């Protein structure tokens, strides 16, 4: 947010802070309200109000702390049940807090989270130094302290809530918008980091902690090896939430981002297996080889099973979306529900829910997006981002609150050694694995990369929740574990999170490519991909491209036919894109009324410059506008053989920038110019000589009401451009060419033909005067054409150019 002065944002922030403070004050008040016992309703069953958020000490599993309601209106005296003689006044106003308590508190917390988020952006100076996650934890600490100060017990982040409600939106958001190219290109590396790296971390840490515990004098010798290994497995997993939160703000290059992020996602399977394994084993007296083998097997079951569940649900979702063309409104819901079901089903069988979620998002996305409407797509995008943002905020706030609320057991040796060994384990793991991986990678990981990967191994709320799940019976040192976990989380999030940005700058790590790709880039890279595929074929090497190609072909032949509705399975997505874009441009233009400022740096390069032969008359043609560029880019991207695609920058919180929204002013200018040009150009075009019209008539006709011109059959050398906008086969070529026409209106003739000027023929559906610009996609081409006509139409009677006759041919 650009602040006009440093004062203004702080001043603006003040009301927010007041609101927040008021809300915070409200919470404990409400708590105390609920606490006052009412003997009248003492018989109220306790489980009537499931204590979802309310604070309860770990021992209280079925907590229902405030199970009495406060009612102002006096009730009939219970002691004399039979005879109610006492008549009360009709309550005009009453308070029944317990009735709405749970939703009210939940909403209050979410509101708090959102206001906090808002506040940080209103005061930008702080958020530049400190990552948002840190600030949120601090807020959580404050809130927790406040609640405690009032005398209440602050709520603790319960594992159920975390795993069932807070985590899935974030993971779904990550999975649905996962940049698949980068992910699959680096899949080997990611897997090795996730699996081997986490295993190494867990065992190294567990083993070392066990050794530390054995040192006499620390009072820790009662902690067995298995308990330590369990602790190690909990703490060793890199947390996706924390990684996302921190890495997003530093805009690091795509490769590193996807490596660390992918690792954090995929290590869930390992964590789940190890956790359950050691939890079970802690009960055993002895661990046999069979157990170890079973554990090994369970890893595959968990991970592949999770993926399998996700794929099933993804396919079902894609299939469902095929039929939703009649009820567009609930389309997004299908996406969310199926994904959530995938997650829950996986959790049901103790499979990896995260992998299921990711798999379902990845699988369903291409097909669902081909089937659903544009609005549904936007809805899905926005909802996912919204939920994941809120979830993340809530998680961090609750981490802070739980720190204050929980019971802690501070043991210096344990905690400090945990911290140190965590770091060492991470660094060693990354170094060792990179050395191994670099043998197989083309793009080697430099030491700088390795440092960032090691440094980016943040722990987060997953570790905390897993620790929270530990049973007191078997793990008496649970409090100590929790304290250690929280310490490590705080350290990684605060210290590493805060310092990673200056370090990235210091080390001059490559950042995300901000510049948009040019058309040339696109063409060249595609060309290169083709070249490489050819070379690979020559070499006889079954490389990346080969398998990708096979997959694509399989996809096209079988899968798409099933999962995508109707004829869209054959349609290149280009067409839909064009229609939407044209529609939007038209709407924007109409709304704005055609005003626009001249952007400062226009390239004056025109067709004249690159192909000077063709034009009979000199004219300045505008250079390509950005939206045109985007169209072209889209054509290229979607029609060229996709052998290998570039790394695209990926930022979770920024929605994909609409290209046409950026180029708004430029586009307006172009259209304005185009319209002016159109008038000029219409006078300069040649008309087939056999039409016995006077120049004025022809001029008028071209300008106002284009009818179908028959191209001269024996015109011989005249290059002819026919545009058939209503033709369903090539709307995109139409749109592009028409776009060009509006702008340039003069394409150089093909080389084999004589340069004699251009004949422009327009065949349009003759239905002028329709002002229904916003026909929603029913008959796209004609309406498009109508729109374009509306836009390019200078009016029913164009001003005749002063005294300039038609130039019959480019003589």
């Amino acid at each position, binding site marked *: 947010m650009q602040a006009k002065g440093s004062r203004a944002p702080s001043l603006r922030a003040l009301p927010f802070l007041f609101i927040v403070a008021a809300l915070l004050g409200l919470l404990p008040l409400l708590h105390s309200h609920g606490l006052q016992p009412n003997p009248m309703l003492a018989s109220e069953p306790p489980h009537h109000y499931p204590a979802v958020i309310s604070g309860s000490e770990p021992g209280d599993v079925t907590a229902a702390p405030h199970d009495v309601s406060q009612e102002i209106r006096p009730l009939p005296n219970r002691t004399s049940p039979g005879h109610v003689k006492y008549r009360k006044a009709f309550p005009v106003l009453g308070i029944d807090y317990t009735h709405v308590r749970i939703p009210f508190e939940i909403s209050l917390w979410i509101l708090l989270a959102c206001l906090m988020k808002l506040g940080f952006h209103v005061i930008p100076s702080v958020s530049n130094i400190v990552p948002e996650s840190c600030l949120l934890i601090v807020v959580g600490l404050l809130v927790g302290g406040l609640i405690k100060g009032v005398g209440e017990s602050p709520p603790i982040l319960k594992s159920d809530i975390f795993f069932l409600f807070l985590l899935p939106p974030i993971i779904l958001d990550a999975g649905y918008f996962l940049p698949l190219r980068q992910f699959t290109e680096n899949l080997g590396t990611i897997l090795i980091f996730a699996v081997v790296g986490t295993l190494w971390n867990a065992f190294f840490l567990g083993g070392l902690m066990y050794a530390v515990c054995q040192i006499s004098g620390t009072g820790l010798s009662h902690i067995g090896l298995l308990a330590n290994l369990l602790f190690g497995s909990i703490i060793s997993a890199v947390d996706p939430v924390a990684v996302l939160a921190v890495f997003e703000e530093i805009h690091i290059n795509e490769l590193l981002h996807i490596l660390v992020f992918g690792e954090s996602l995929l290590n869930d399977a390992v964590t789940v297996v190890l956790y359950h394994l050691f939890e079970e084993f802690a009960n055993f007296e002895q661990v046999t080889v069979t157990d170890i083998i079973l554990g090994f097997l369970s890893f595959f079951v968990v991970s592949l099973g999770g993926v399998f569940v996700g794929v099933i649900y993804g396919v079902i979702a894609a299939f469902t979306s095929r039929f939703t063309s009649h009820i567009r409104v609930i389309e997004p819901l299908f996406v969310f529900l199926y994904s959530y079901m995938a997650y829950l089903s996986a959790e049901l069988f103790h499979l990896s829910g995260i992998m299921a979620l990711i798999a379902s998002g990845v699988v369903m996305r291409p097909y669902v997006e081909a089937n659903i409407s544009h609005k549904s797509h936007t809805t899905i995008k926005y909802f996912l981002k919204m939920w994941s943002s809120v979830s993340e905020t809530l998680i961090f706030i609750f981490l802070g609150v739980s720190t204050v609320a929980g019971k802690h057991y501070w043991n210096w040796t344990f905690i400090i050694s945990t911290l140190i060994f965590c770091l060492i384990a991470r660094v060693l793991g990354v170094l060792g694995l990179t050395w191994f991986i670099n043998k197989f990678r083309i793009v080697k990981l430099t030491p700088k990369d390795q440092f960032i990967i090691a440094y980016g191994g943040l722990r987060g709320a997953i570790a905390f929740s897993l620790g929270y799940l530990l049973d007191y019976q078997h793990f008496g040192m649970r409090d100590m574990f929790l304290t250690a976990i929280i310490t490590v989380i705080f350290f990684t999030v605060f210290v590493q999170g805060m310092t990673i940005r200056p370090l990235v700058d210091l080390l001059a790590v490559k950042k995300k490519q901000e*510049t948009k790709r040019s058309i040339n880039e696109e063409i*060249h890279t595609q060309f*290169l991909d083709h070249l*490489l595929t050819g070379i690979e074929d020559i070499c006889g090497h079954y490389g990346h491209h080969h398998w990708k190609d096979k997959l694509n072909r399989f996809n096209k032949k079988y899968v798409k036919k099933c999962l995508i509705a109707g004829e869209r399975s054959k349609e290149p997505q280009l067409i839909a894109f064009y229609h939407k874009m044209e529609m939007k441009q038209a709407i924007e233009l109409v709304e704005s009324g055609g005003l626009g400022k001249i952007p400062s740096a226009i390239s004056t*390069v025109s067709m004249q410059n690159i192909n000077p032969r063709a034009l009979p008359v000199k004219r300045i043609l505008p250079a390509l506008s950005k939206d045109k560029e985007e169209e072209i880019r889209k054509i*290229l991207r979607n029609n060229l053989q996709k052998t290998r695609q570039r790394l695209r920058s990926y930022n979770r919180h920024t929605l994909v920038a609409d290209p046409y929204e950026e180029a708004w002013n430029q586009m307006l200018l172009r259209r304005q110019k185009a319209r002016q040009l159109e008038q000029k150009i219409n006078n300069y075009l040649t008309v087939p000589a056999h039409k016995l019209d006077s120049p004025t008539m022809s001029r008028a006709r071209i300008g106002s009401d284009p009818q179908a011109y028959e191209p001269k059959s024996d015109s011989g050398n005249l290059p002819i451009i026919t545009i058939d906008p209503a033709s369903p086969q090539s709307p995109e070529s139409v749109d*592009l060419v028409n776009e060009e026409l509006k702008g340039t209106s003069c394409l150089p003739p093909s080389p084999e033909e004589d340069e004699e000027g251009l004949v422009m023929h327009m065949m349009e559906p003759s239905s002028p005067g329709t002002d229904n610009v916003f026909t929603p996609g029913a008959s796209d081409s004609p309406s498009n054409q109508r729109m374009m006509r509306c836009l390019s139409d200078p009016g029913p009677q164009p001003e005749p150019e002063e005294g300039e006759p038609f130039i019959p041919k480019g003589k």
Partner: protein
Amino acid sequence: EGLAKSGITLEQIEHLHRRFKQISGDQPTLRNLRQAPDGLADEINFEDFLTIMSYFRPVEMNMDEEQLDHFRKEKLKFLFHMYDSDNDGKITLQEYRKVVEELLSRNPHLEKESARSIADGAMMEAASICVGQMEPDQVYEGITFEDFLKMWQGIDIDTKMHVRFLNMEPIAHCH
């Protein structure tokens, strides 16, 4: 000889030789397989084959700046020659158009005009990158190699233009 300069190891040369023999059917030279009498040579022998392949070497870690730069230029030069079919040192609009048309030939829906417009647009963009502001009467002849380098400035050609020479099993030549 030139092989030492190209930097391929002996083992890779053996691989490639085997592959060459397979493709060429044990002839000493490869025929130009294109239908049209395009291109500059009718046949290439193994040395040419090798030279071309050497352009696709992956970047080695131990290269210094100068070597890297040279490497990059070599690769880009190769690409440039692929565009510049008449070998006059610059990519003209017609050549560019041809390239784009061929690239887009996969989709039968796209008309030739679109390909042409795309090429035109790309050329305009190239001109604006390389020359910047141009007067209406200036003519941009074509993309020279320097301009080409400029266009590729942001992109990492080194990381893209490579083939793994690690293992090349001679597979059945099925075409």
